[in-house]
């Protein structure tokens, strides 16, 4: 407790909420409120309606949601496999090589997502691999962008892992594959599920690289939100944004439930 007098404490809290609520809580609330409105020219939105949500169920927004969910699912699974594999393999390498491998897998965090999109566009519009205009290129882009986060959290978890488990299993004669499957991966499960949730959420909201490469028949939700607000339909865009937030939250919630169950086992 840093501030001891009661009055000073209340003053600090007042300033805190005067900053925190308008900056962080209000934006999310405003989007939710706008998604149920037809106009907003006063303090409060006007014309309460469910029309935006009813339109969503009919139009191509549902396709966009499914596209986003499928892309995020594919990208998270691929990123988790690649990131975990790389983290596990890098652990056995000599220190210097290991630092290079770790650095390479972290690099996509630093490279602008727009540049990642551009690079895929440049590379896969020419032989030997032609992916431009396909769904796969979107999934590849998302995988590249989220693998860094999967690799980072699995590496961190590996560094915290007590080597005694692995050593005693190996000392009892378990082969490396068995140790990995029955000892290491179960111990890593909580971090793996956390990484999966993070990858999924990031992929659901990815806009920058996607804007560069999406084909007309594979338009994820963020691109749809941009297209909607760009033509001036702000309130329909808000409804789409609420759908995006709700879907992301639901998946994060489901993942965190798996996670608590995994850590109790």
């Amino acid at each position, binding site marked *: *407790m*840093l*501030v001891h007098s009661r009055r000073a404490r209340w003053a*600090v*809290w007042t300033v*805190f909420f005067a*900053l*925190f609520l308008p*900056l*962080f*809580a*209000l*934006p*999310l609330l405003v*989007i939710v409120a*706008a998604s149920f409105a037809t106009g*907003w*020219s006063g*303090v409060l939105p006007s014309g309460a309606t469910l029309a935006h949500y009813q339109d969503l169920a009919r139009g191509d927004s549902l396709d966009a949601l499914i596209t986003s969910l499928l892309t995020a699912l594919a990208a998270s699974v691929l990123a988790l496999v*690649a990131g975990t594999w*790389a983290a596990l*393999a890098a652990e*056995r*390498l000599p220190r210097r090589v290991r630092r290079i491998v770790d*650095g390479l897998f972290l*690099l*996509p*965090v*630093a*490279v*602008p*997502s*727009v*540049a*990642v999109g*551009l*690079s*895929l*566009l*440049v*590379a896969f519009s020419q032989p030997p691999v032609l992916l431009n205009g396909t769904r796969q290129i979107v999934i*590849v882009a998302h995988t*590249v962008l989220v693998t860094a986060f999967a690799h980072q959290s699995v590496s961190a978890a590996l560094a915290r892992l007590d080597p005694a488990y692995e050593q005693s299993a190996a000392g009892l004669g378990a082969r490396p594959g068995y140790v990995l499957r029955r000892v290491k991966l179960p111990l890593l499960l909580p971090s793996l599920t956390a990484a999966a949730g993070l990858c999924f*959420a990031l992929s*659901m*909201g990815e*806009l*920058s690289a996607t804007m*560069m490469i999406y084909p007309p028949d594979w338009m994820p939700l*963020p691109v749809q*939100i*941009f297209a909607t607000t*760009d033509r001036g339909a*702000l309130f329909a*865009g*808000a409804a789409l944004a609420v759908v*995006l937030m709700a879907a*992301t*939250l639901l998946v*994060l919630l489901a993942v965190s439930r798996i996670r608590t169950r995994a850590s109790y086992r």
Partner: protein
Amino acid sequence: MASAAPAARRAHTLWALPPVAALALVFLYPLALVVWQSFTSEDGGHSTAPYAAVLAQASFRDALANTVLIAVGATAGALVLGCALALVIAFVPFPGGRALGRFIDVFLAFPSFLITLALLFLYGTVGIANGLWTQATGAASGPFDFLHTPWGVLLAEVTYFTPFVMRPLLAAFAQVETGQLEAASSLGARPRQVVRKVILPEALPSLAAGGALVLVMCLNEFGIVLFTGAKDVVTLPVLVYTKAILDGDYTGACVVAVVNIALSVALYALYRCVAARTAAGGVRSARA
């Protein structure tokens, strides 16, 4: 046993190959092609001519200046605000503070452009702030019209990136021993002194790391600027998009992308060095 070691090492290297090869195919090879393309002039020859052409454009220089200024401003804002808010959550605790921490985690999972969208309803030509003004004064339109200027981008980036500063700071603040604070206070240090002399030195590595990360993310931010929809706020990532998708000028886009990548990766490398040194050498090296 001596002969088994090299064989084991070979096996370990072999196991590391598939993920590295995959990364090379979908990330390193495309990046190399971007660099190659940026040196390819229209007649198919290879020279630095595309760079000379792009660097001479006023639009590029404006975008570079915009990007750096907005990124530095947003990082400074996020650092100050994040530091202040995290200090209150950690050291002037109130009921519900933990729920607030969870709220921040959720905030981090949302895409950045949602903030710009929300600001349109808050400070846009229609929206709360201007609505308040017109209702109170009876004027035809409100005074808030900054969303399409760099200030709108700045506000959105400060809002979005402050939680990225707060999270590592909250973790660092949790490590500060309350005994130290009590000792300092009972020796007569005022809260301001305790913060400056005891808490901040302890949290400086996290503050530096968080700030560097946010600076890189601000340099690379695209969604916030795109949603702002302002013609006169162009940053490097937006210029890459405009050149490649709207103008079809791939070489020009590659040049801008290479500049953007160089800037961000250099900063990120610096951040990794600082982070590694502070992890090894304690607090003092963070200041270097």
